């Protein structure tokens, strides 16, 4: 499979052009991003027991779409119709995303459960979810989510994505989502031009479990005012209308509903060779500082991030002498995204960085609490990596060039997660100082 051009990437994975030619040499030596990472702590959390109730196995392996996607972090969960112990389905290949909040699955994945859709006074709820590469649409359903070791998030609202005309688009009845809204000039609403990203194939996964910084996907914005391209109520047979959506019924981060260990998550993945790996197993640990297996050492820097405004979810980065860049960790981004015109792009796998040999770049990260330090990222030649091992799915040294740091920021994606314990502290949580939302990192246990 050959990649014409890397169109976009991020939350899920990256298309890699396997079988491409040339490029720089990848070595077989195992290395780590040693250099300088003073923004990360040095104290490892304890190795979790595989049976601990707050431990959820995660894996980077071959994409559900087969060859071509890399660095897709997934897990397996059991989804049940709310209140039922038998109307359930195990769903594998659900992408673990610290860059969004809430559980979303294509209708084709959960249609066997015949989930009733939630309604308000004016019809079924519909949600248009904004992603940087387009909009997704679907109805809401109440479910119980069970994790591998028995932890459960009960009675949570998930989004069921429309995934094709045959699966829905007929308004009104249970288990079928309303039609996406058309433009509504009176409301100044553009409608929801969705349908491009709703399927398993388009997602490259059976769904997304958003375990990000925020409790809900939209939050108080949508509770307090009508926001285009967010929540709607859909009267039968007519166009959906924008609706206010109280936060308690918005699609929410499932982990906040797990008992006790619900104030954050830690993603723990072992380090891998600079050449990459076929698959990598790790753990998602629920809670921060709530059990012996999720300690945040006092010496570990905690990077607080803004909870509202343009910098929401970001710390401040200085790179190549440019300050005020928005930076963040994101398991849903398959690679690093940043601008650096001194690093060549690939000729075969266009859209990736292709340094002639391995390079390391260092940035400064500072939380809104003024705590921070340096972080270093390693890049290898993507053409060379993909050509050397066509069956590899995990890489700790891939990047993609974006032209503007001032607009797009510095996205510390999946490559940084290998070899580290990556802490995502949820908003409004107060057992750690500073309070959430925050990021922190430490070595992998």
């Amino acid at each position, binding site marked *: 499979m050959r990649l014409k051009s890397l169109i976009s990437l991020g939350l899920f994975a990256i298309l890699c052009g396997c079988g491409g030619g040339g490029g720089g040499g990848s070595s077989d030596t195992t290395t780590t991003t040693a250099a300088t990472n003073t923004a990360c702590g040095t104290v490892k959390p304890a190795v979790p027991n595989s049976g601990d109730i707050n431990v959820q196995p995660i894996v980077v392996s071959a994409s559900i779409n087969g060859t071509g996607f890399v660095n897709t972090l997934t897990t397996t969960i059991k989804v049940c119709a709310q209140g039922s112990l038998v109307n359930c389905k195990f769903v594998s290949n659900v992408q673990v995303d610290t860059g969004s909040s809430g559980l979303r699955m294509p209708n084709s994945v959960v249609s066997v459960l015949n989930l009733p859709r939630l309604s308000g006074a004016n019809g079924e709820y519909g949600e248009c979810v904004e992603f940087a590469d387009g909009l997704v649409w679907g109805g809401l359903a109440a479910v119980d989510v069970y994790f591998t070791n028995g932890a459960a998030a009960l009675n949570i609202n998930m989004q069921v994505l429309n995934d094709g005309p045959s699966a829905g688009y007929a308004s009104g009845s249970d288990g079928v989502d309303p039609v996406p809204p058309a433009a509504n000039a009176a409301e*100044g609403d553009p409608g929801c031009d969705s349908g491009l990203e709703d399927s398993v194939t388009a997602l490259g996964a059976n769904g997304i479990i958003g375990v990000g910084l925020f409790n809900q996907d*939209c939050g108080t914005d949508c509770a307090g005012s009508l926001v285009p391209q967010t929540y709607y109520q859909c009267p039968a047979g007519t166009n959906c209308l924008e609706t206010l959506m109280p936060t308690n019924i918005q699609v929410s981060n499932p982990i906040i509903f797990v008992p006790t260990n619900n104030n954050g998550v830690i993603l723990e993945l072992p380090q891998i060779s600079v050449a990459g790996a076929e698959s990598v197993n790790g753990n998602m640990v629920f809670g921060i500082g709530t059990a012996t297996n999720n300690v945040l050492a006092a010496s570990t820097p905690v990077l607080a991030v803004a909870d509202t405004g343009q910098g929401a979810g970001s710390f401040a980065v200085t790179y190549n002498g440019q300050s005020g860049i928005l930076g963040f960790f994101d398991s849903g981004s398959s690679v690093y995204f940043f601008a650096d015109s001194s690093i060549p792009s690939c000729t075969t796998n266009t859209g990736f960085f292709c340094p002639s040999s391995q390079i390391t770049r260092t940035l400064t990260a500072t939380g809104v609490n003024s705590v921070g330090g340096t972080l270093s990222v390693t890049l290898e030649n993507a053409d060379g990596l993909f050509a050397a091992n066509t069956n590899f799915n995990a890489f700790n040294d891939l990047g993609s060039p974006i032209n503007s740091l001032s607009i797009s920021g510095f996205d510390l994606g999946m490559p940084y997660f290998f070899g580290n314990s990556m802490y995502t502290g949820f908003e409004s949580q107060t057992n750690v100082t500073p309070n959430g939302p925050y990021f922190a990192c430490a070595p992998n246990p």
Partner: protein
Amino acid sequence: MRTRIQHTLTMLICLAYAPWSMAALGAGPDSVDADQLHFKSERRDSVQSGYQTHELTSPTGTVVREYTDATGHVFAVSWRGSHLPDLRQLLGVSYMRFTAAAQVPHGGHTALLVHDNDLVIESTGRMRSFAGRAYLPGAMPIGVAQDAIH
């Protein structure tokens, strides 16, 4: 007569859809006005060396900037905010290139990049924090660098 009726019908259709069909990127001088109406925005214009910027702030706080050349044509747009703007409106005819890129199996939702000779689109962000820009390299006024679009 028939031609005339058709013409009138076309006019009516155009009028009815005017605020929705007028594109921003690549469009003429009227399009900034159309976008201001469309986004129900407050507007601030400023003159730079060789071009003008028109900053539209929507009720939800998303800021859209449109960059026009000496003839009033929009050669670049940018956006940032907690919510995406209506990209179909803002990108105009280039929106088809955006959706085409989105339909190619790709890496995910945190970024969508189109880096072509005639069109650059960089849409990035996560829930609650989006930013992006799009420009027509061939339509940039002389002396205006891509760094100016921010």
